[in-house]
């Protein structure tokens, strides 16, 4: 792992709507190193996308506004620059490239794939049209699109969902950025295509020694690829750590709940899933206490009375949680799905067998 390339401190982004201030990103701090792959996970509306948009200062404004924080990219605070400043424009694409959630909306429907690819390549690589066209064909070939010469002349709607997403990957990689952000790159795709696209994205990132941020709501999708995980809930990061720590020794009740909610193909079917009760909170006029409190099965008096808990480090590790309690639980192996007499999750911290 290399140098720290991105360090975000206390980022806050809100949407000022007629109903009130939506605190979409609430005091979020994180970092990514060179050649590292990290994931942001959490459920719909928890602020994963807005966090990434904030880094690039492309939050729709108004109603959106970055209300605080610092975004150090290669040592410089990007938030010191205006959204449409030359500095920010050069960061977008060439410094940090983003692959969006919905590939159909981020490719322009009225231009051919080749047209859009060559435009981007000419912009970032300072080459002529003919050369850019050749590089475009190469780019499509690098993302394993068959007959790239033909595909260059296709319109986006003429490609399948998987191919469109691979075109987006080609565009991002060909800008030669330091960091690629992939926002739910495979959510709209079928499982077999999802596997195809992810394997490809990760292998390109590794081959070019880039850093990658994958945003997803599905923990399972990223387990295999990522070094570290940030878990978000209601606009905040509530747990972070190495993939192994998070997946085998999650310590925040929300993360534990998420992992318990997923049906496991290798487990007995007769076991009931353990859902998290209730639903995520509104992001307007939020309770100053822990936002997970109403859904938490571990809540105790401290949680009822104290303010939202700050992220804190567990021992010497790189594992952080925002929880008043310390649930030294483990959901590995057979503990998943077991309930104790109080109807709570089994906390037996047995090792993985």
């Amino acid at each position, binding site marked *: 792992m290399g140098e720290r390339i991105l360090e975000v401190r206390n980022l806050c982004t809100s949407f000022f709507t007629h109903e009130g201030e939506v605190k979409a990103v609430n005091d979020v701090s994180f970092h990514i190193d060179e050649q590292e792959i990290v994931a942001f996970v959490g*459920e*719909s509306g928890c602020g994963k996308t807005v966090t990434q948009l904030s880094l690039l200062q492309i939050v729709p404004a108004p109603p959106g506004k970055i209300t605080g924080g610092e975004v150090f990219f290669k040592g410089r605070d990007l938030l010191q620059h205006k959204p449409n400043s030359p500095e920010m424009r050069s960061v977008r694409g060439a410094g940090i490239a983003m692959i969006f959630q919905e590939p159909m909306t981020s490719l322009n429907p009225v231009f051919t794939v080749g047209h859009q690819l060559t435009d981007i390549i000419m912009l970032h690589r300072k080459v002529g049209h003919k050369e850019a066209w050749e590089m475009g064909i190469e780019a499509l070939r690098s993302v394993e699109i*068959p007959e790239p010469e033909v595909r260059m002349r296709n319109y986006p709607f003429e490609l*399948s*969902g*998987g*191919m469109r997403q691979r075109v987006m990957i080609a565009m991002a990689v060909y800008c030669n950025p330091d960091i690629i952000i992939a926002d739910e790159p495979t959510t709209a795709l*079928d*499982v*077999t*295509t*999802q*596997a*195809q696209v992810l*394997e490809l994205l990760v292998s390109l990132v590794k081959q070019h020694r880039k850093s990658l941020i994958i945003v997803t*709501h*599905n*923990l*399972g*999708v990223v*387990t*295999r690829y990522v070094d570290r995980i940030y878990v978000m809930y209601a606009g905040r990061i509530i747990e972070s750590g190495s*993939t*192994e720590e998070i*997946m*085998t020794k999650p310590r925040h009740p929300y993360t534990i*709940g*998420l*992992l*318990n*909610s*997923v*049906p*496991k*193909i*290798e487990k007995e*079917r007769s076991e*009931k*899933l*353990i*859902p*998290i*009760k209730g*639903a*995520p909170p509104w992001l307007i006029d939020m309770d100053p206490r822990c936002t997970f409190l109403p859904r938490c099965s571990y809540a105790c008096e401290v949680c009822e009375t104290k303010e939202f808990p700050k992220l804190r480090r567990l021992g010497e590790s790189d594992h952080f949680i925002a929880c008043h309690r310390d649930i030294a639980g483990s959901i590995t192996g057979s503990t998943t799905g077991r309930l104790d007499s109080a109807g709570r999750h089994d906390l037996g911290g047995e090792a*993985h067998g």
Partner: protein
Amino acid sequence: MAETVRENPLLKVEQLKMYFPLTKGLLSKTYSWVKAVDGISFEIYPNETFGLVGESGCGKSTTGKCAIRVLQPTEGRVVYKGRDIAGLSKSMLKPYRRELQLIFQDPYGSLNPRQSVFSILKEAVVLDRERHTAVEANERVDELLTLVGLDPDMKSRYPHEMSGGQRQRLGIARALACNPKLVVCDEPVSALDVSIQAQIVNLFRELQAKLGLTYLFIAHDLAVVRHMADRIAIMYLGKIVEVIDSDHIFREALHPYTVALLSALPTTDYYQERKRSRIILEGEVPSPVNKPAGCAFHPRCKYATETCRQVSPGLRNVGRNHCVACHNVAV
């Protein structure tokens, strides 16, 4: 292995085909067909959950709609309680309407935004002829809400004032209003967040036990289907390629497509996920308009032989209620 003797199926689908015409020109001349469902057969037994999985466009929804005669199939038999309903007219179907219900993926799209929860449910309750008086109907609405875990006080709300999970509960309550026998659940949890998905999956299972329901459960997420269903049919391009008991699928699946699906399935088991090898399928799913000759899966199958390229394999029983459509699987 001896076959288990079973009671009569509640629903038996035989050689079902559903072709949609592709037309052009002023006279809407048909120039080709979308072979959405191309000759499939299966049975669903009372109180069973029969799962249907497969990737987008493989014909799952079309199969579900034909099974409860929301669509009239192009060919084939749909035998419900011993009677073929495939060709029945609208009026002849009427007695079956209440017993055969559909729950959609998008709870929002299937609910009228201008109707309150009460009015949505009342409408469904009134369709059920057994109930008459207003008081009875009101009581039934409360009963339905409680049944699906919603507070009866929610009656006055509108769909947009509810969360996704609550709306899906409402959709379920509506489908249950007429005491159905067979419920087709078409991707009923796909639009929900995982933590909410688990609540609804549990609700489906509780309701089945309580009300003796039979489900045709459709989803693209194999893990969810495996959790819900007793038996699973895997579809590819309008055909069923494998039918297998849920408890056996993880270890005993034989069709190369099922095996690839299983290997691509994301799991949350860290240690397993890190060491697992994945089968990455080459190429794309072909279109149901220009289906490849022979086995529809052959262009993506690494075991494909000359026979596979020419002859479409039938579904054959390999024992223990396990059927596979593949030339390369020995019986």
